[in-house]
């Protein structure tokens, strides 16, 4: 019972630490996914009476990533049966030029309007149309949640590490006599501390695997899936092998560093 209590005292803070760490990772992925959508689900179409100097446009608006001309053939296709080829060629030459503009930032409404105004100032530009989907609000909300989760995760990290340290101190005190006696017969540091390292290794594995299982099975829940869909999150945000490996590695590193620091701190007493 006492031993179980000792293990739980390490497993719980470690579990919370890893859970919050994984949450930050997932938030980062969700925001990244939204960013991708924002980049792709808007467009700026420019209508101009003549050719646009692309370089000039890029110089005037540094946020522009690419400017691609839109072929008028799709529009002219409609008239193919009614007009002679000569008339069609004339119509084509007299049509305005259309351009599709892509930006290197996901723009919000204000930025989009500002860019629109700047484009209008470019010679030959007669009209600018912007089309956007309303992802920005959710995106900003997610950015806020991401920032908050990072702050919480940092606080949780500090508190959890302090709790782990406390438990390591208790373990070290419990094993101090044994370590002292082993030291009297010339036992090296690693041998005296082997039991503690085995304990933290086991607890690290238990914590990391539990967190992984939760994140693995949670997205499979029907109501959770519904919630995610309503937020537009339609990708698998947990990578079982990669994430579990990182969680195991992180928990082992944290606990091994903690136990080593605590043992070294008490080294003079247990020599």
């Amino acid at each position, binding site marked *: 019972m006492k031993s179980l209590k000792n293990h739980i005292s390490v497993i719980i803070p470690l579990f919370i630490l890893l859970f919050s760490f994984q949450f930050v990772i997932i938030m980062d992925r969700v925001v990244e996914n939204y960013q991708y959508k924002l980049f792709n689900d808007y467009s700026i179409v420019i209508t101009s009476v003549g050719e646009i100097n692309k370089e000039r446009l890029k110089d005037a608006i540094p946020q522009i990533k690419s400017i691609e001309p839109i072929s008028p053939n799709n529009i002219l296709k409609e008239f193919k049966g009614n007009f002679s080829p000569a008339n069609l060629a004339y119509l084509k030459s007299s049509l305005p030029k259309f351009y599709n503009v892509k930006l290197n930032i996901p723009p919000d409404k204000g930025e989009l309007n500002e860019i629109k105004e700047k484009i209008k100032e470019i010679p030959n530009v007669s009209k600018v149309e912007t089309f956007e989907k309303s992802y920005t609000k959710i995106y900003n909300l997610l950015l806020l949640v991401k920032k908050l989760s990072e702050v919480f995760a940092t606080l949780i990290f500090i508190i959890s590490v302090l709790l782990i340290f406390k438990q390591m101190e208790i373990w070290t005190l419990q094993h101090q*006599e044994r370590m002292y006696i*082993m030291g009297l017969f010339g036992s090296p540091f690693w041998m005296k501390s082997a039991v503690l390292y085995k304990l933290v290794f086991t607890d690290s594995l238990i914590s990391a695997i539990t967190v992984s299982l939760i994140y693995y099975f949670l997205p499979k829940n029907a109501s959770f899936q519904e919630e995610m869909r309503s937020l537009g999150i339609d990708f698998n945000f947990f990578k079982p092998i990669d994430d579990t490996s990182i969680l195991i590695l992180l928990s082992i590193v944290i606990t091994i560093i903690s136990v080593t620091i605590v043992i070294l701190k008490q080294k003079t007493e247990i020599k």
Partner: protein
Amino acid sequence: MDKIIIHAQNLQLSYKKGEPIIKKSNLTIKKNEFVFVTGKSGSGKSTLIRSLYGELPVEKGSLTVCGIPLNNIKPQKLNILRKHIGVIFQDYKLIKEWTVEKNVMLPLMIAGYSKNVCTMQAHKLLKHVKLLHKADKYPLELSGGEQQRIAIARALAHNPILILADEPTGNLDEYSSEVIWDLLKGAHHHLGTTIVIVTHKIPSTLGINYKHYFLDGGIINEVS
């Protein structure tokens, strides 16, 4: 010329700077000697023995044990020294979470012997101290005398050059004390182990030649 196992020159030991427990003392113990260090309570007997296995640093002077100087000794070097020493304490210092067998195996495990060798040697020693039938018991299930016999078996397990004993019979009755003295005499006689015992009283019926030092006022005096 006999090999010197312990050599102390102008040795000064203290727990607090400026308050020496052992003052400018000289001590030379040769191989295969059986040595008693006696003195009143608080005379520094345990302090002296603690310095001999490197638990208490040398404040002044020099101290060499088994050819290894103990002044400013590094932990790795201290571990090497301790692998050649067996220590016995008044309070036995057995690992209570371990079985009797595992306790005896400890110095052999540290020396890196295989499990089979450790088990065989532990059984041999447990048979020698007449406690083989208690190999699977835990120390707290044994009497004080039995625990001290286990401590002796453990101290002898790795065939040490030197055994340091701090009041080995301090907590035992007369019968158990006699058994302990016999075991220590046996180790000295059959294995040629140098034995240094700190005690407040030398047993009257020992029946062997021994060297006697008396600690008084922080000075080690040779009596015989």
